């Protein structure tokens, strides 16, 4: 009896592994064998992956056509801001020595265009782009409202500075009339962007839906008239718009513009040996940045080199 009462009073700490710092554990030690074999294994792994990647990158063909200088006239024209709505076209012929097999993608690439500036990247309204509240332009400074106070849709600096050159790829089959290479303007965005993040305001007619808003100051057309051919590709759901709105991380970036529609002559890809012409309808951006069109053939992997 006495014993038990003494024991209940005892201040002897618990004998648990945690409290006695005796938790079962594994001691990690840097042993020579461990370290050396680790180094070796890592080396082999990196080498292997590197080789695979280099090989797969080799099968990728890429043509980059810079048109900033060639289309210098247009650039000059644009330097005068009053000419913003005048069209200017220029063509660049090039020759494809080999067939580009498989899927072909056309990108536009901008050099030194800072899409990642702090204020630039914030200058958008996600709730507006979701179509829930067109008037929510609070985060869009300095392009939130027009002079008369009408909210801009889509608001913000990103939307305002959209890349709106038109690039057409033609194929000169036999030096007569060039055939326009069929290009798809769909499927160039993330699924989540197209179907979740960007929504048009609910209404049968887009122009009614966007009533009470105005187009961004640098835009020639309102947002609901971006694609004249495909009415579904209008408003905030326009693929080119969505692609542009996904701001790039670095000042030099490329964005997917079109992908080859593999029909007629082009089921295998872009046939080689023939002359192509790129016609750019440069509207207003060209003066600032140098641009390029990438034609890229994609097999499976992209070029990704390491080591």
């Amino acid at each position: 009896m006495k014993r038990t009462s003494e024991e209940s009073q005892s201040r002897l700490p618990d004998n648990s592994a945690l409290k006695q710092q005796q938790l079962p554990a594994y001691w990690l030690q840097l042993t020579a064998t461990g370290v050396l074999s680790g180094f070796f294994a890592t080396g082999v792994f990196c080498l292997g992956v590197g080789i695979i990647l280099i090989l797969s990158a080799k099968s990728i063909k890429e043509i980059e056509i810079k048109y900033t200088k060639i289309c210098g006239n247009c650039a000059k024209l644009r330097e005068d801001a009053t000419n913003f709505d005048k069209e200017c076209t220029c063509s660049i012929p090039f020759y494809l020595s080999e067939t580009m097999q498989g899927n072909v993608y056309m990108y536009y690439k901008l050099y030194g265009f800072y899409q990642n500036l702090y204020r630039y990247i914030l200058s958008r309204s996600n709730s507006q782009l979701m179509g829930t509240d067109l008037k929510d332009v609070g985060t869009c400074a300095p392009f939130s409202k027009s002079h008369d106070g009408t909210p801009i849709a889509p608001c913000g600096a990103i939307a305002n500075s959209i890349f709106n050159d038109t690039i057409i790829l033609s194929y000169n089959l036999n030096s007569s009339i060039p055939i326009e290479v069929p290009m798809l303007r769909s499927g160039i965005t993330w699924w989540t962007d197209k179907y979740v993040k960007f929504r048009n305001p609910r209404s049968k007619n887009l122009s009614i839906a966007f009533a009470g808003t105005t187009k961004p100051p640098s835009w020639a057309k309102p947002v609901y008239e971006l694609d004249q051919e495909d009415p579904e590709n209008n408003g905030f759901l326009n693929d080119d718009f969505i692609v542009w709105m996904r701001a790039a991380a670095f000042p030099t970036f490329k964005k997917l513009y079109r992908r080859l529609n593999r029909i007629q002559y082009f089921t295998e890809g872009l046939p080689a040996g023939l002359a192509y012409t790129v016609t750019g309808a440069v509207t207003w951006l060209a003066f600032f940045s140098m641009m390029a069109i990438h034609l890229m053939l994609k097999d499976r992997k992209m070029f990704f080199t390491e080591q």
Partner: protein
Amino acid sequence: MREGVVGGGTLPLTLPWGARAPAQKALRWRSVKLTSARQWWCFSEMKYIKCFISEIPWNYSWYYSAMSLVESQSEDRQSEEQVRYLQANSRELNSTFGYPNNTIKTSRYSVFNFLPLNLFEQFQRLANAYFLILLFLQLIPQISSLAWYTTVIPLMVVLSITAVKDAIDDVKRHQNDNHVNNRSVLVVMNGRIKEDKWMNIQVGDIIKLKNNQPVTADVLLLSSSEPYGLTYIETAELDGETNLKVKQSISVTSNLEDNLGLLSSFDGPDTKLMQNCGKSTFKRTHMDHLLNVLVLWIFLFLGGMCFILAIGHGIWENKKGYYFQDFLPWEEYVSSSVVSAILTFWSYFIILNTMVPISLYVSVEIIRLGNSCYINWDRKMYYAPKNTPAQARTTTLNEELGQVKYVFSDKTGTLTQNIMIFNKCSINGIIYGYGYDKNGQRVEVSEETEKVDFSYNKLADPKFSFYDNTLVEAMKKGDHWVHLFFLSLSLCHTVMSEEKVEGKLVYQAQSPDEGALVTAARNFGFVFRSRTSETIMVVEMGETKVYQLLAILDFSNVRKRMSVIVRTPEDRVMLFCKGADTILCQLLHPSCRSLRDVTMEHLDDFAFEGLRTLMVAYREVDNAFYQAWSKKHSEACLSLENREDKISDVYREMEKDLMLLGATAIEDKLQDGVPETITTLNKAKIKIWVLTGDKQETAVNIAYACNIFEEEMDGIFIVEGKNDETVRQELRLARKKMKPESLLESDPVNTYLNTKPQMPFRIPEEVPNGNYGLIINGYSLAYALEGNLELELLRTVCMCKGVICCRMTPLQKAQVVELMKRYKEVVTLAIGDGANDVSMIKAAHIGVGITGQEGMQAMLNSDYAISQFCYLQRLLLVHGRWSYNRMCKFLSYFFYKNFAFTLMHFWYAFFSGFSAQTVYDTWFITFYNLVYTSLPVLSLSLFDQDVNETWSLRFPELYDPGQHNLYFNKKEFVKCLVRGIYSSFVLFFIPMKTIHNSVHSDGKEISDYQSFSLLVQTALLCVVTVQIALDTTYWTLISHIFTWGSLGFYFCILFLLYSDGLCLMFPNVFQFLGVARNTLNLPQMWLIIILSVVLCILPVIGYRFLKPLFWPADVDKIMNRIHLWTRHPLLPPTQTKLRHTRPRRSAYAFSHKQGFGALITSGKTMKDKVFKKNSFSFKK
């Protein structure tokens, strides 16, 4: 001076209370336990009291009396004297003075003021204030570069963790307060004695205390049930002293009748204890100071970076941004790129704030708390006999336990148990006390040795044990000399006895030595039963005899002996004397020369074993001679001039021609494992100094016994000069022997000192040419501590392996510690158990109190409380070492991870127009320190062990890196910075270069800002997780869960934050909709992450692996051996068993004080003196 006046009129009288304790801490009479008086009338007293006892209605004779007490408080209040007015037992009048009531309040908060007060206190901390300022900066839209919640959420979490901790602490304090406040006490109210709670007591109340009641107030003794108004109090709860202190009521009140009430005047917050509470300065560790410096460095670094980036921004705006205005016009308030650059400076200041880690301080607190808990939980530091576990009273000093270089130890109660045991004796030339086995061979006494059976003696003390039966046999046979020897022990002392239960004697001894002797006599059959001022009652082998006490020739330090003169029942006058052998030898009758020689041999044997020895002698005095002597004695006592000398002459006359009886040997028991502990600590290069109030002989004896001094030392110096010059010479001489070149002008230290460096400067370590010990006594130390000898002392003393400072006052103890702290960059630890160690405990970096001796004072002021000295090695070598290692690993990693995290923004600035764009999602910034990386680093710093406790005790050398602070210092910090820069470089440029030209398999580009953010932050988190996995050497299940769990948790949070639901609900807050789904399913993303991790980690592994191979430190070699042994457990390392050879050294320590004998024999005339002498005595 202290004459009370009865009758009309008031006469102030002054009690010079604190006067006996100059420069001590103020004595605190706050919870004193009554032990001896059956009842105790007292009047609780405050700091300074002036009270008028008027009109005590239940005692007419005390109609008017007055007293005033003025007490000078020591230390900081020395100059200031206050007078307190009060009237006894008159609450109405006293309430007009506005004294506080006796409610103790140590708690800081109440329910209502907790939030504002706690927040206010927290924001006084620099780090918190900084983040608050940052928050305000963030609210300025022009420079805001981060969402407000990135700072608010971490700040809230940090604040609430601290608030919860404070709240828990305060709840505990409230509980303690309630417990103390609700103790009950008898108080006189309206002429009746009523029971009330202590908290309701007011100044001027008269209270009645019974024996063994705690006293929760400063009280003034009015009257006692004991004769002469004496009480005996124990102040163990205050200062750890268990020996009784005598208190005497002033004569005017001491005649109060027994049944009267008592007077209490009192103020909870004004009591001495409360006044002294909380004044102790907050101790901070070296690591804290280092952290402050480093945070300053970080600020500078941060400022530098912001400056560079601001300039970059200015240039960029000039060259590019100006033209980019078509797309992004400047804000209206930005008139030029310069304005923009200035704003950017602040923007980057906000972004890069994570360089100064917000959770650093709170994490450090949590880690220290956790490691303190381990100390509390350690079963191996639990002392079963006293039922006390070790206790970490401070949770802020842990890692410093792993850095201790100097240990300052008290002797009594710390190295020794302060238990005296009658171990052996030599009676009439025969030695007793050795254990014998059945064959009559001498054996070492151990637990199993059969104890002597004292059952024949009903009054024996059951706790007493003795192992030699021959003595008992001699006793029973009626050996004359043996009987006389024990009779002498039972008569010649100043012990008081108490017999609460018939047959159960309790002795109250002034010194434990004396108690041991009387107890021994009691057990062998000569029981000292009781005494009056004129008689001593002894039960001799069952037969009660009363001896008439004629005189006590009291002990003094000079005489080193004491005698009693008694008249035996047979009407013989006998003198019994006990004292130091050196003194007594010369007083012996020539006839006992041969016996003396034999006894001296025995004494040598005793001394060899480290026992304290006393000689015992007697003399039969002729009645006439006694009468003549008695007359002379009275004259001497009454003489006005040279009384002391005259008395000692008279004594000398009596104490001569003594007949030798024998010698006693008392063991001053060392605490368990003390020598082993000290050897281990010495191996860890911890220097141990003994600072004691004891005499040199005793101290040195103990020093040898516990291995601080060793026989094989190259030399031991004794510094005992009585003036400046001798002390200097002694010190220089010692230094000359230890390191001759250190006296030359060309010695680097001398050259350094000659340059007269500015304070604070540090004296570098000097290496002597051997092992030396040094003994210095308090007298010389007083000179040595004077200005110009200070450095001399320090340099000499620091070269010695062991140092003994004896005859130290508490203040000197603290001064020595302070000296060390001032000139040496070392961590000092002071360990002690009594009130006299408090100053040293408070002064040292770490104060350790020994508990379990019922003492509280040392413990209350200590940072760590352990119950045995030997636990110190575990506290330092295991807990300290682990805490230090963990703290260092934690800090290295913590800074690294924040640098790697933050510097990424710096690199990104060069590609984002220096626009204060962050690389990461704001939510990642919010959670990085708080959620993603906090648990792994916590598990590292709570569970990691580089080697287990067995190894760290077996190889004390492993303690070395802590002493030199090798694991985290400025150099290590720079290494962290470099590593952080490297990692951030890799983590930024690898993803950047790999991603910027790559596309998804369906042609979609992946180099958008959000994907890049996700990629970089995932890679960063993987790198820091792998890094901590490498840092962790001890992988418990918890480490696995925390480390890998955090990484997994990151992905879970990621999918939550980037999920449709949340993003659609708050589209402008959660912008990263779908990024995780679209990016993390790309194989090249994972390849990028793997590549980044490999490139970040490989160099670290390489460095860690190669460093011990090419530049091995001592620790590395030991670690190698340990690893070898763990892998091949066949070769257990043998630990050499310690062998101590006890030096041949005599020890005389008669630790009690003069004056007690006089108290016993004399009446009131001697009372005041006794009172003064004993009331504030400190244990030596």
